């Protein structure tokens, strides 16, 4: 079989990106070109269901989101560790399995702690 530059995943990847990017850009451009343009002071205000906005939207918001984000990072990293292990699972044998279970148990303690600290309870 003769090989060609298009067998290279990176090249294919670039073409794919170009195509998807082009498609998306096309949609953005279409609306920007064809739509009408008009602007006035009232329209420039953020739409807050008819109320006149009094303050900027850059305000503090509940810290719960931050906690969820932190817990997400912890467990997303865990998932990242799990994938290579899952692929090689059969070759690692019982020792590999037990090691990962210990890791999971430690993280489960963390999850339990977060649950008991009411990180996931929203009023």
């Amino acid at each position: 079989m003769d090989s060609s530059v298009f067998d290279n995943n990176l090249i294919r990847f670039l073409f794919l990106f170009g195509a998807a990017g082009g498609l998306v850009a096309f949609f953005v451009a279409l609306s920007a070109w064809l739509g009408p343009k008009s602007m006035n002071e009232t329209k420039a205000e953020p739409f807050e269901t008819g109320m006149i906005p009094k303050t900027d939207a850059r305000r503090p918001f509940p810290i719960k989101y931050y906690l969820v984000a932190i817990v997400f990072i912890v467990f997303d990293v865990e998932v990242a560790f799990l994938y290579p292990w899952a692929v090689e699972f059969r070759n690692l044998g019982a020792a590999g399995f037990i090691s990962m279970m210990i890791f999971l148990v430690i993280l489960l303690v963390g999850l339990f702690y977060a649950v008991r600290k009411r990180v996931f309870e929203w009023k």
Partner: protein
Amino acid sequence: MIPVSLTDIQGVLPETIVVIAALAVIMADAIRRGHSGALLPVLSVLGLAAAGAAAIFLWGTSGTVFNGTVFADGFASFFKVLFTVIGILTILFSPHYLKITGVRLGEYYALILTAVFGMMVMASAANLLMLYLGLETMSISLYVLAGSQRGDVKSAEAGMKYLVLGAFSSAFLLYGIALLFASIGSLDYEVIGTFFASDFHPGPLLVSGLALLMVGFAFKVAAVPFHFWSPDVYDGAPTTVTGFMSTGPKAAAFVALIRVFGVALAPASSLWSGVLTVLAILTMTVGNVVAIRQTSVKRMLAYSAIAHAGYLLVGIVAGTKAAFAATGYYLSAYALMNLGAFAVLILLNRRDEGSYRFEDLRGMGFAHPLLGITLSVFLLSLTGVPPTAGFFGKLYIFSAAVEQGHIVLAVVGLLNSAVGAYYYLRVITLLYMAKPEGESIIVQPAAYRFALVISALLILVIGIFPEQLLRVITLAVP
């Protein structure tokens, strides 16, 4: 993957026990939701005691486990025992302090345990990456501990400052490790040692790596001029945590220094011993001189902690087995006396705002004999008066330095000890030479008194029989 054997697990038995204890404490705290009474400290002390027992049980083993990344030798075991002692003493002092400051944080005990775990990993690391992992585990726990008095502005500031500067110094250390790896191709101490023992060329990559590594360590042990974080952090952190922070992590960092600079990098000592000498002189002098001018006893002890790091650096510069043994001895003595001194201060502090002024100590020696005597023992030992442990620590370190021809270092160290005597003894004069202002009732919980007496007795015992402890450490020194 290299299969994990039973020997590997056995080598890290103390660490494993500490982690299990920490997890149990977290679980207990989470289940009881902060209403756990004495359960958490009891669990923590039991865990640490078991870990210490395991470390003693492992005494006499040698070599490395986990594919050469972890030392399972006597030196590691010795320091693991020391760390568990530091942890247990801190925890014995803590419930009372947490009560009077109104901190209700179950995580406090779990964090002390994880910090002890980190120190243990640092002490037994045989690989720079393992060292870094231990260091980070320890540091991150300490950042939170320093800021754990959440209602207090100073504590919050301490936590934040410690986090920012600690992360900064960790980055230095990591960068140094990366550069060393780039020029040597391995992170194992053993390989690094053979590399430097052979005919190597000190290229810019290697030298800058060493420099960054040294800066990282200097930050961690708070050596001048990388000490700026430590007075504020020590001052702002909850006092029990200050005692813990100024002893455990320092000991852990010095073990790592001995293993990395003292052993692995020993053949290349011409590259770094000069810098370390200057650091040691600066650290001793600045720490002592600034300590004189403090108006708060807590802050004075914070600066004196810097000075002690300077004395300990002399041991690293001297670079012989005897010097390392002396450093180990000094670290043990220092841990007991510093922790004890902070603990007595907690009880004697009569104001709520945590100011620890000298006036508070006026005449307390006669009003509260136990506190007066124990604090005097701790301070005399910090000064270095025989027959306390502090005296022999200094003696061993300086004589090791003189043996290696570092006369200047020894002389500067002795002069500094004299300076230290001024501010330490001033406290003792206040304790006994003045009349107390009014009546004072000080609550002294049993566990607290027990821990104080034990620390003071231990200082006297290893001060009166210094040879025994020194011999034990000398046997273990790598």
